[in-house]
């Protein structure tokens, strides 16, 4: 079974940030927003991320994710200095899909620089392509493993989001 089509589009910085994921200093920890309607999957992804030294906020819907990010017009979370380093979302969710959530994030000038990773239990190439074309930074086929998360956090901690957009490249391997 071709489980994981590895190495999808990824941004790489020019310079390497001196971020050390092993630091327990909370201000240095990457903060990841995980979005999944499945209780079991939320528990697993949370553990995977914490094990990779990330701070995690897990929500069960795209709507709640937008509220948390301050994008929901009806309900603002009121956290102005929210710093999210990565958003990882399930694709298939009732209401708003992960794809729709990702599009809303990428449409927002405030949030579009945050890397968005989509997870799906279905390894459908057309779906993967569509997500990447619309701005997803990576795509993981479920079940998610520690190696998947480590790969993401390795890229993320080196990300120099404020400056270096040069150095982006596409690297797709079947």
């Amino acid at each position, binding site marked *: 079974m071709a489980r994981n089509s590895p190495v999808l589009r990824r941004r790489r910085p020019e310079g390497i940030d001196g971020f050390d994921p092993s630091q327990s200093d909370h201000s240095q920890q990457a903060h990841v927003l995980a979005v999944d309607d499945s209780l079991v999957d939320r528990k697993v992804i949370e553990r*995977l991320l914490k094990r990779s030294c990330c701070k995690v906020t897990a929500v069960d819907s795209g709507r709640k994710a937008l509220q948390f990010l301050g994008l929901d017009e009806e309900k603002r979370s009121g956290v102005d200095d929210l710093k999210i380093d990565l958003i990882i979302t399930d694709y298939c969710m009732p209401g708003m899909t992960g794809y729709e959530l990702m599009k809303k994030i990428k449409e927002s000038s405030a949030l579009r620089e945050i890397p968005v990773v989509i997870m799906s239990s279905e390894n459908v190439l057309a779906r993967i392509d569509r997500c990447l074309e619309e701005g997803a930074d990576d795509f993981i086929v479920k079940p998610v493993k520690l190696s998947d998360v480590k790969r993401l956090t390795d890229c993320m901690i080196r990300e120099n989001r404020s400056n270096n957009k040069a150095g982006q490249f596409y690297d797709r391997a079947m």
Partner: protein
Amino acid sequence: MTETKGCKGYLDEQFVQLEELQDDTNPNFVEEVATLFYRDSARLLAVIEQTMVRNPQDFTKLDNYMHQFKGSCSSIGAKKVKAECTQFREYCKAGSSDGCMRTFQQLKREYSTLKKQLEAYFQLARQVGPRESATRPR
């Protein structure tokens, strides 16, 4: 890790992955996930069963529910139960209520068997202590 791990195919690599996430700060992680799985999925299975009774031809709905359930099975490494989910979804595609019903009965049996095995496994794991690995459910 013992060779008996999943030797009869009840559990797959994902279960091993969950065990690897267990450590001193989270010594009961796998049991917590398994408990959550059984609690959460009981509800979903009841809904599926109800739908098969009331709307046995509503294959779209049945398939959607089963997709959700299959996802959870996948996340804990419940290999045999997951295989039944796949079979069930095939019958949904084929529009076969009989096939769905038969498969669902088998699915419930596998689900139940796995639960007992996991309970025994966790009990043993607690007895031998966190650093030893108990014999994986056969």
